[in-house]
């Protein structure tokens, strides 16, 4: 046991002390924060204010067209379609001379084609004004009453309340769940690759440096393999915990630097941008809302499960990567072809996840979140939708148990490949042989 501990310590310290580790640990969150900050700033900046002069000869629209952050109306009769640009206006709006009901005779003169946002805004304001006018003039409806009626109608919110057992309810929020699930699953996917290949390279290094033979004359090959896997896993955990702390620190800093109005504006800007169902946009809006609406998600459970699925997903795959590393000879190209059967399930996992996150209760989503090859990715995508609402408790428990079982199995299997492979030089190994090593009696 002390030997495994020594190996773990070496694997851990030799990596944590590296400059690249320290840099990547601190720079990655900075990079993300930087990207986020830039995106927010660009969105804020791109919400420009267009100034329109209004030639309202009927005098009807005065006070009815309301300036907003995006569009400013200026009732100024000295502006005409010749001089508006020189006076600093984006355009000039001519309303019909006589009857405002001639709705086809509104004219806007501008130097360039108006943006979708601006023209829609102007149209909205005009139709609103006309509508109000008609309601008032034809049906004598008091505008104040109408406003309050509309206000009331608009204030209706649809909230999805999830029934948890008898009297317990929970605020559902599929939008936030979607993004958390997506992010968590992707993070698992990426880390499986990063730390899995780190294990594989470590094993290859030991084999090629020929230190393996010295080591296995002191310790059992199994101890060497487990020590490496656990050591690198601890490196990964360290990095994650530091990221969580750093993200928390950064987000606090950013929150205190960016006033809430700007976040509001970002949200508005997001809504205003044409084609506002684009994902990037939603992400920003989602983030802006996240602070308010996170309450609908069981964050401690998700973080706990994330760490579990990260750890055991890693352990499940790391030993397979170690087995591949032990079988590789001098030629690193062998690694590519031997790695394929190990990386395929991970890639499948992410493909299934993209489907499962849209429909988290479909049979495929449920079953793949139990199969250990895919469960770390798929289950993490489903979990934010709620336990036990979307993911039943039994599903979670079976998924966790099968992952632990799977990890024990792959470790057992890999250890048998590893102890043969680590000392075998010069021969190109095929998967057929690896399987033979794994299942032959010793």
């Amino acid at each position, binding site marked *: 046991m002390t030997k495994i501990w020594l190996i773990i310590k070496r694997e851990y310290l030799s990596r944590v002390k590296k400059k690249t580790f320290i840099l990547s640990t601190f720079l990655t969150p900075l990079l993300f924060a930087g990207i986020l900050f830039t995106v927010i700033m660009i969105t804020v900046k791109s919400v420009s204010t267009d100034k329109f002069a209004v030639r309202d000869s009927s005098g009807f629209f005065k006070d009815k067209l309301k300036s907003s952050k995006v569009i400013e109306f200026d009732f100024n009769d000295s502006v005409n379609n010749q001089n508006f640009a020189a006076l600093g206006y984006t355009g000039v709006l001519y309303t019909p001379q006589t009857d405002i009901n001639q709705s086809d005779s509104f004219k806007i003169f501008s130097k360039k084609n108006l943006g979708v946002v601006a023209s829609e805004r102007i149209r909205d304001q005009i139709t609103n004004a006309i509508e109000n006018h008609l309601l008032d003039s034809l049906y004598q409806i008091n505008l104040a009453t109408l406003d309050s009626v509309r206000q009331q109608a608009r204030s209706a919110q649809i909230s999805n309340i999830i029934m948890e057992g008898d009297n317990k309810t929970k605020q559902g929020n599929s939008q936030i769940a979607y993004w958390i699930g997506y992010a968590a699953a992707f993070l698992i996917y990426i880390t499986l690759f990063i730390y899995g290949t780190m294990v594989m390279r470590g094993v290859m290094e030991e084999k090629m*440096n020929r*230190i393996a033979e*010295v080591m296995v*004359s002191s310790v059992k090959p199994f101890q060497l393999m487990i020590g490496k896997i656990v050591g690198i896993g601890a490196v990964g955990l360290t990095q994650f915990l530091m990221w969580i702390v750093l993200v928390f620190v950064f987000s606090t800093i950013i929150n205190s630097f960016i006033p809430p109005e700007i976040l509001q504006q970002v949200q508005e800007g997001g809504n205003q941008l044409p084609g506002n169902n684009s994902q990037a946009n939603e992400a920003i809006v989602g983030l802006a809302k996240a602070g308010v609406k996170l309450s609908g998600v069981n964050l401690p459970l998700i973080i706990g499960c994330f760490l579990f699925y990260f750890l055991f997903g890693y352990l499940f795959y790391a030993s397979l990567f170690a087995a591949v590393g032990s079988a590789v000879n001098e030629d690193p190209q062998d690694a590519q072809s031997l790695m394929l059967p190990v990386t395929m399930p991970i890639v499948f996992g992410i493909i299934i996840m993209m489907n499962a996150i849209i429909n988290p209760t479909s049979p495929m989503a449920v079953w793949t979140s139990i199969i250990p090859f895919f469960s770390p990715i798929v289950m993490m995508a489903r979990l934010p939708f709620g336990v036990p609402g979307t993911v039943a408790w039994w599903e979670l428990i079976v998924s966790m148990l099968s992952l632990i079982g799977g990890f024990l199995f792959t470790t057992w299997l890999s250890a048998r490949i590893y102890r043969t492979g680590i000392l075998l030089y010069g021969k190109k190994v095929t998967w057929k042989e690896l399987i033979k090593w794994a299942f032959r009696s010793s």
Partner: protein
Amino acid sequence: MNILEVNHLKKYYATQKAVDDISFTVAPGSIFGLLGPNGAGKTTLIRMITGIFYPDSGEILFNGKKFHPQNDAVHIGYMPEERGLYKKMKIGEQAVYLAQLKGLSRADAVRKVKEWFIKFNMESWWGKKVEDLSKGMGQKLQFVTTVLHEPKLIILDEPFSGLDPVNSNLIKDEIYQLAKRGSSIIFSTHRMEQVEEICDHIILVNKGQKILDGTVHNVKQQFKENLFSVKLDKQPQSVQSPVFELIGKNEGELIVKINEGHRPNDVLQYFMQQQCNIMAFHEILPSLSDIFIKLVEGTPLSRQFEPITA
């Protein structure tokens, strides 16, 4: 009691009998030579003794008890032919780490590493990385890590390859010292002059089988061809005798092979009767190299693969 006793050890691979029924013993404090051509099965044999491989059959007794790889690894130091160290690790830390894996406490390991580094003039290396070392320097480091934990059995596979004569001698002296302090050393090499110089006892392995076993002295006696060198003050006109046959003639020296049933004294008598003054007379023993070549001759240069049906 022997430190190591190997009885009928066998290890077959799919296409080769790597080790086929080999037995030998290593006495405490002795330097034991394990010889054999490339691919004879030496490495496989060593790997079984170090607990890296399990034998298919046969038994290994370590210090009189059945060999237990996990427990006995502490008492074995193994330096493989292909040297291996962590390239990116600092040299001092690496030596301490390897010593700790052999069961030393950190404090002991640090102390011992420092002692050895001083002994080998390596103090300034502590904070360097292995990748900064030359091949010979790496070799010295590897030797230190092998013997640091004062193992009872030290297995050295080609310990002098890549070392200059000064460092070779340094290591050789250490090997003698270790043997004097009671460690047994198994020494595997192709360099026969070193074996003759260092080893007490040798075995020769070929095609997975032991073909020779004995002390260096006995082996030489066993393979001697009754050759003698005679130095005379003047060359006789002709040499003709039923006692011996003349094999070679050098400047003032004759090489003779004594025939069956005769003794060296008969040779001397013959020359004295020829009125020759004998300046020197000594036996020519075969070198281990000659014996090696003689025994291994006829074996294809590299071992062929053959199906195993045993």
